[in-house]
Every structure is written in structure tokens, then in C-alpha cells.
């Protein structure tokens, strides 16, 4: 009977050690986030800010009196939106083209796509800075957007190509067979079928852009994005209003995650 028990453990009930292990992982992952949230409600006004001295909404009110912080957040959103739209456009065209056509040097292009992904960001940052200096584009929003497009486009292509690998070109032939010209075929058949891939690629590009520090640091000029602003202020400890904005951002991203999990992208799960 002991052997029976050993060879066929009850898989429906979690083991105590397993449970503890899982809990500690989640603690490790979520404790820092919890601390940020907690500190955003911390009434402590003097350094070190970390000691908790009562509950307050003060930082949230103060946050809206801090135009520099708010405008940095605005910049981050602007750069993220612009670079996402551009990289999704470029990435979609590239992925669809690479899926559809056989051409010389395709595998080389495939391999080259990995370089911006694996290259240390600091090197990519320096390279971009050199290029911008070379063609004398003044550093600012434009260079930030271009740089973010440069590093997020390969990710969009990867996401879409994974999605497209299961995509049968016969659907497009069927559409044309039924009288749809090329534009209608793309609009009614290709686009709806690859849209989930485009959306997840876009989401990835957006999140990559929103928290980028290293590359942005090289090419921002005088424009401050939110992560850069935080980096700047951190020299004197994490300011409580930064915690407040972080908490709001957390709320926003959690909302997006919940939304996507609860069926906005259901068609992706279906096929």
C-alpha cells in the first residue's frame, strides 16, 4: 500500500511544501508592488520616506500640482502611442511580406531581426545617438519616437510571425476566388484573421516603450519621459508623489490585463 501511495500521489491536492513555495514566489513578485502602493498612501513627510506614519491621499492631490511629473507622463504616453502605431504598421507589413513571399536572403533577414533584440540596450542607445548626431536630427520627441520604433519593431514582427505561421494563405485565395480584389481580400479576410496578432504585437510594443529608460536616456535631449523623471528624482529617495503616479499606472495596466484576459481577444483563443 505504501508503494501504491508513492507511485500514485494524489495530484488533485497541493503538497504543503509546494504551497509554501508558490506563496513565497508570489510574495517575492508582489511585495515590491505592495510597498509602492503602501507608500503612496504614507503620511510620512520627512526622509526616509519608507517609514509608515499614517494614511493619506495627500500625494495624489500633490501629484496633480506637479506639472513636471505630469508632463513627463504625458510625454511617455505620446511616445508610446506614436511608436506603437509606427512599429505595428512597419512590423505588420514586414511580417506579412516575409510570410507570403519566398525571396533570396530571406533567412538572412530573419536572423538579422534578432540583433536589435539581443544587443545590449546601452549599445543600441549609443548607436542611435550617433546616427541622430550624424544626420543632425535635434534630440527630442522625434528621436525618442524613432528610437522606440527601432527597438520595438522586431518584437512586433516576432509576435506576428508566430501568429501567421498557422495562417493558411488558402483563405486569401478563397476570397479572391469569390470575387474579392486584393484590397477587399486584405480588409475582409487577411486583416480580421491577423488582427489578434497585431493587437498583441502592439501591446508588447506599447509596454516596451512605456518603461524604457536606457535608450531614452541617450536620445531624449531635454524631453523627460516618466521613467527618466523617476530616475532623476530617485537620487534623493523615492518621492511619495512618484509612488502615487506609479500606483495609478499599475491600476491602468492591471485593468488592461484583466480586460484582455476576460475576452476582448477571445478570437485569438478560438483558432
Amino acid at each position, binding site marked *: 500500500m505504501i508503494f501504491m501511495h508513492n507511485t500514485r500521489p494524489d495530484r488533485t491536492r497541493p503538497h504543503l511544501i509546494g504551497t509554501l513555495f508558490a506563496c513565497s514566489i508570489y510574495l517575492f513578485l508582489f511585495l515590491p508592488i505592495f510597498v509602492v502602493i503602501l507608500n503612496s498612501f504614507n503620511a510620512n513627510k520627512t526622509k526616509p520616506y519608507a517609514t509608515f506614519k499614517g494614511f493619506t491621499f495627500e500625494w495624489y492631490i500633490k501629484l496633480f500640482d506637479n506639472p513636471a511629473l505630469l508632463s513627463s507622463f504625458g510625454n511617455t504616453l505620446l511616445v508610446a502611442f506614436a511608436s506603437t502605431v509606427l512599429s505595428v504598421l512597419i512590423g505588420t507589413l514586414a511580417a506579412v511580406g516575409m510570410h507570403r513571399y519566398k525571396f533570396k536572403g530571406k533567412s538572412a533577414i530573419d536572423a538579422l531581426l534578432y540583433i536589435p533584440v539581443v544587443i545590449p540596450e546601452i549599445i543600441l542607445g549609443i548607436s542611435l545617438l550617433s546616427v541622430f548626431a550624424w544626420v543632425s536630427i535635434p534630440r527630442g520627441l522625434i528621436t525618442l519616437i524613432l528610437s522606440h520604433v527601432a527597438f520595438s519593431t522586431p518584437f512586433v514582427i516576432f509576435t506576428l510571425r508566430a501568429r501567421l505561421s498557422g495562417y*493558411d494563405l488558402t483563405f486569401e*485565395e478563397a476570397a*479572391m*476566388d*469569390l*470575387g474579392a480584389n486584393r484590397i*477587399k481580400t486584405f480588409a475582409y*479576410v487577411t486583416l480580421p484573421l491577423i488582427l489578434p496578432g497585431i493587437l498583441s504585437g502592439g501591446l508588447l510594443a506599447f509596454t516596451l516603450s512605456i518603461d524604457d529608460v536606457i535608450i531614452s536616456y541617450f536620445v531624449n535631449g531635454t524631453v523627460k519621459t516618466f521613467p527618466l523623471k523617476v530616475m532623476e528624482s530617485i537620487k534623493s529617495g523615492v518621492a511619495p508623489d512618484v509612488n502615487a503616479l506609479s500606483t495609478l499606472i499599475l491600476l491602468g495596466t492591471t485593468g488592461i490585463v484583466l480586460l484582455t484576459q476576460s475576452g476582448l481577444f477571445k478570437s485569438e483563443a478560438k483558432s
Partner: protein
Amino acid sequence: MNDQHDFLFFKFSNVRRMIMSEKEVLVKLRGINKQYGTNQVVKDLNLDIYKGEFLTLLGPSGCGKTTTLRMIAGFETPSSGEMTINGEDLINKEPFDRNINTVFQSYALFPHMSIYDNIAFGLKMKNMKKADIKPKVEEILELVQLTGFGGRFPHQLSGGQRQRIAIARALVNNPQVLLLDEPLGALDLKLRKQMQVELKRMQKKLGITFVYVTHDQEEALTMSDRIVVMNSGYLEQLGTPDEIYEKPRTKFVATFIGETNLFEATIAQVDEDEVLLNFETGCMRGLGKDFELDEIVYASVRPEKMNFGSSNFYKPSMPAVVKEHIYIGSIVKCIAMLPNGQEVKIQRLSGEPLPKPNEVINLYWEPEDATIMHSREDTLFSLIENVNLGGAYDDSK
């Protein structure tokens, strides 16, 4: 009097037109070649497709059937040759400008559209009004016996149902030609038989020209008005199922369609429309013209046309030893072996008297039951590879 004359004339001309229209050429292929790199996939194909016929492209996998179909659909451009529909050039038309529809082997139903939207797609592309589309979709759903399925999605249907929807989606456009690429390939045997009958029924009812691709000779024989037998890019033979089965013109066709016994022989004597054949193991007659003396030929004889004669038989015949009987429902297959080791299949209805295993008999056939074909070989008896005389001949010594 005059009225009646007119009526009769009208009726007569109508009948005449009906008879004539059966032979009206719709699609014309002339000298079509298709190459992928150095690989020539379709070779000098000449073919007339008649209006309203059920034409089948039959051949083994890789012989170029799909490629031919895709050239007619417009997904591939021929490397050379001409293709017309109703006398108009077809090659330079885009697939979406051709009034030709395809039933894809994978069905290719749009997964993000309901069944209704799938079927309506072609009509929408023609800018038909919504109010006109609805009755058409419902009518075609009725034809394929899936009334009420419009609201479902492709993944909610069984394989057989999806197949019907694929047919409906193509047929609703009332195409000049419907192309079907092994449409029943993914179905199980029972469903396939049922769909064969239904497809034929739809084709007759609608009078639409069907070009059907299959590698299943039985399917081709039961469904088609005419069959194109293809082999490695060549058109081997074009004819009615009867002609293809009864009068195969090449060794390939004889062996690919149905079961047959193939013998190599030389022409020993040429008479008016009969030849005397010299086999390795005997002499026999067959019908045939344009053969030369001493030419190497193949003789193909269907198992049901082979006859048993007793061992002291006087007609031209071949001695053989009965090896075994195989009972398959209402028929019996009998295997006999010639002295050179070649096995011969003989088919009888069960219940008919049969020689027993190990009995020595004389096989023969009526001259009109053998199909004699020119051989492209220049050495004789290349057919028999493993000569194994077996124990039976030792016993009979």
C-alpha cells in the same frame, strides 16, 4: 396546320439545341505547359471542357491535377499555352474577374465569419443588395440540406457539414465552371459515397460545369461524364468512363483504372482487324489495327473477362495452375499462375463452378475482350520481375 408545324419545328429545334449544347465547348486549353524552375509539372495539355459536363481529372498524386485546376482558377499562370472561356482569353484575367469558383480541399471556410456570411461573401463582393442575398443563401443552404445552419461558425460544424458549406459557398455564385480539388478526400468512406451521389445530383440539377480532381479511380468512374487520365504531367487518355475502362489506350491507363491482367507479347500475325499474339506461355488472339509484325505490345484483359478451359482445351489458350480463391461478398477472385510465374486474376460471381486449387487449367479470353496497346519497350518480357514457379509446377511434373 401552320401553327402545328411551327410548334413541331420549335420543339424539334429545342431538342436539337439540347443535344447540341451537350457538345458546346466552354473552356479550351491549348498547349498548356507549367514549369516550376526546371520541374515541368504540366506538359502540353490540350483539353476541351464542354458546357454542363462533369469532367474529372484523374491520376496519381503529383501528376499535376491541382496545378491544372489552379491554372483554370487563376492562381497559377501557365508557362506557355492558351486558355479561353467562351472564346475569351482567360489567362490574363485575375482570379476575382473569372466567373469560376473553387471548392478547396481544405474547404478554406473563413473562420471569423458565420456560415451565412461565408456563403454570402461572393454575392457581397458582386455588390448584390442585402435583400437579394438572403433568399439566395437560404435556397443554397436548402440544396445542401443544411437549412438553419446560417448562424453557426465553421468550427461548430462537422467535417461533412463544412464540406457542404464549401460547395454551397461556391455554387451560390452560379459559376460558369465549378472546380473541385479532391473535395471528398477528408471524409470517411461512408460519407464519401453519400456525397458522391449528392454532388452528382446537384450538378445535374444546376447544370453547372464541374471540373473534379481525384486520385480515386472508383470515384471518377461513378461520377464523371468524361475522365481525363493524367500521368506525370501528360494527358494519357480522355474519354467516357466506359471508354477509359473498356478501351484503355496505354499501359498506365489499363493498370491505373480498375484491376487488370497485363501481358507482354509480340505480334505474330496481322489479319484484317485481328492480331495473333505470341506470349511467353502461349498464343492468343486480340482485336486491333495498326500493329506491325513482330512489334512488342501489351495485352490487357480484365479479371471478369478471363475464362477457364479444361486442361485438354483446343482453342488458343495459356496453361496455368489455380493457386487460391478469395471470396469478396458476391464475387470470387481466383488467382492462377502461368508457367513463367506471372499471376493472373480471374473474377467470377460466387456460386459459379470453379476449378479447384492446384488444378491445371487453360486460360483464355475472347479476342474482343483483350485491349492491345503499343508498348514503348524494346525488350520483351520486362514485365515479369520475380519468376517464382512455386510448388504447384513441381507437383504436376
